[in-house]
């Protein structure tokens, strides 16, 4: 059983949706929890989505679970009455999910599921949820979230969205897109012949800030996702880039070089008041907010090579954070500020990888090794997974690794290159 979860290329492909991205799991943890998610009982014409398949894929992608294939199941119970725990102990499953779905009106469904502890023969979770046809995928992810949180204690992030940029090989067409965390239901929100990069989600998940690299130079835009309406925020002389929404959503940190060289600024989106944060002849870029809204992490070349620094917006005090390696850039926080992830090069000429750093202990750990030219790490809102872009087989793909480095999967696009992932927030 454990062999199944090591270095397996498991292709998950959503047959019913026009998914650009597919998932390949390359590594799970050795102590993966064995769980069986029984096919959902349903009578009628085939549904457009397989909710139980979504749950199995979500849990497998987390790397923490070993998923029993439906064909290996001895029975397919849908209710407690049909359930024999002996069957599942024989199959060495620790947990079991049974479920059923029924139509309650045209295009309206009711889903009931139960999660059982096999060894103790005890029900842990039971829920009844309703959904329309378009929400079947969402129901699957919600159930995955509930199971994941019940069994790991960590809030699930399966219902979240990711934003990313796709481009053709010759870099003449760029699309800013949003998809589900599993790559399904991709929606293009901005298309351009100009390069789009550095997408940043507002904390309420309703807006995206990004850079558009027009012929006259880089400009920062904020776009309302629902309406598609975009607003030019910064088009000063020189560079306008690296936008980052503040935790309260009212401000944008960004980089301007209008005053001589790239510096960090903060603009209040409501008052349009500008605050200059850095004042140094070296390159200062890639600001990222800390949860208190009073500090920014940023990348600076002031010590000779790019390293991560932290600045207080209140006092202006600047502190260097990274000392390990030749190049550390594009820091992103994980787990409420306990961890940093970043692009890291240990020495000149070495590959660029994603590294994480425990801020309290100052220890840096390199997380990736299968891919190279790794960049733009983005952390899931539960602080567990890092999605990033990498070169793999001459293409740019998205890949993900857990913050402790144990779980890995690839998200290759079927065509073209994918870059600049930005993991969306929890939307309450």
């Amino acid at each position, binding site marked *: 059983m454990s062999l199944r979860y090591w270095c397996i290329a498991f292709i998950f492909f959503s047959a019913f949706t026009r998914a650009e991205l597919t998932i390949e799991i390359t590594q799970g943890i050795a102590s993966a929890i064995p769980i069986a998610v029984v096919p959902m009982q349903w009578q009628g014409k085939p549904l457009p989505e397989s909710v139980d398949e979504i749950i199995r894929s979500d849990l497998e992608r987390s790397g923490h679970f070993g998923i029993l294939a439906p064909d290996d199941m001895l029975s397919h119970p849908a209710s407690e009455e049909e359930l024999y725990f002996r069957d599942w102990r024989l199959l060495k499953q620790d947990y079991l999910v049974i479920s059923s779905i029924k139509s309650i009106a045209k295009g309206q469904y009711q889903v009931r599921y139960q999660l059982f502890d096999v060894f103790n023969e005890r029900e842990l979770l039971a829920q009844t949820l309703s959904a329309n046809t378009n929400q079947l995928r969402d129901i699957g992810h919600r159930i995955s979230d509930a199971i994941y949180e019940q069994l790991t204690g960590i809030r699930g992030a399966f219902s979240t969205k990711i934003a990313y940029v796709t481009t053709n090989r010759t870099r003449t067409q760029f699309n800013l897109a949003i998809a589900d965390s599993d790559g399904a239901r991709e929606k293009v929100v901005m298309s351009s012949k100009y390069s789009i990069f550095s997408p940043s989600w507002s904390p309420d998940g309703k807006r995206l800030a990004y850079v558009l690299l027009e*012929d*006259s*130079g880089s400009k920062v835009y904020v776009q309302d996702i629902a309406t598609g309406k975009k607003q030019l925020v910064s088009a000063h002389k020189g560079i306008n880039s690296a936008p980052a929404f503040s935790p309260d959503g009212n401000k944008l940190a960004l980089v301007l070089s209008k005053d001589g060289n790239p510096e960090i600024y903060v603009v209040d989106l409501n008052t349009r008041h500008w605050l200059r944060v850095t004042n140094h002849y070296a*390159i200062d870029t890639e600001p990222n907010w800390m949860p208190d809204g009073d500090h920014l992490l940023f990348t600076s070349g002031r010590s000779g090579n*790019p390293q991560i620094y932290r600045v207080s917006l209140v006092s202006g005090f600047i502190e260097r954070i990274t000392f390990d390696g030749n190049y550390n850039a594009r820091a992103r926080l994980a787990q409420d500020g306990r961890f940093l992830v970043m692009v890291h090069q240990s020495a000149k000429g070495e590959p660029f990888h994603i590294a994480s750093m425990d801020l309290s202990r100052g220890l840096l750990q390199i997380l990736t090794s299968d891919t190279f030219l790794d960049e733009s790490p983005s952390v899931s809102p539960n602080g567990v997974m890092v999605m990033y872009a990498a070169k793999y087989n001459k293409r740019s793909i998205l890949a993900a690794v857990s913050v402790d480095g144990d779980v890995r999967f690839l998200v290759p696009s079927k065509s073209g290159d994918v870059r600049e992932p930005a993991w969306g927030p929890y939307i309450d």
Partner: protein
Amino acid sequence: MKKMTINKLFAVSVLALAITGCASDGGVTEDAAMVDESQTQEVAASPEMDMVNTEEAQVSNPLLDQTTIYFGYDRAEILPEFKDVLNAHAEFLVENPQSNIIFEGHCDERGTIEYNLALGERRANTVKSYLIVQGVNPSQLESVSFGEERPASFGSDEMTWSKNRRAEIRYSSAMVQNQIGDNQ
């Protein structure tokens, strides 16, 4: 004001030596409407730019055909082999005050997109500063960075990367951005 600007330019140039390293190779997007037939380098063009017919002047100085300056990995300083080329362009601009140049800074793909955007600007500015030191009026010069986003060549090897670490010289008769004075 001018003197202070030049000193500041020197400072920027010197400091630019300490940091640089744009990486990435990419394919050319469009051919520039440069009128030199003997042009050896490919230049990414902006379709909105008006191109100046500099053919007559360039017949007299073939160095003007060269419009791409290359850089070492992680560097922004001008390599000695390009000084003659830059001097030629400087001379042309001094003699043709109605001509303007936009310097485009580029990087190879290594490193982050944002840091490379900044490095590309550093390269473009280094070349611009050099021309100002040669006596060109700053109002004739403009710079823009495309970071690693508009590579001249695609690939992930040293040869490709070296072709992308560059500054492109593009002539135009109209400036892209409204620029009152030069505070670079």
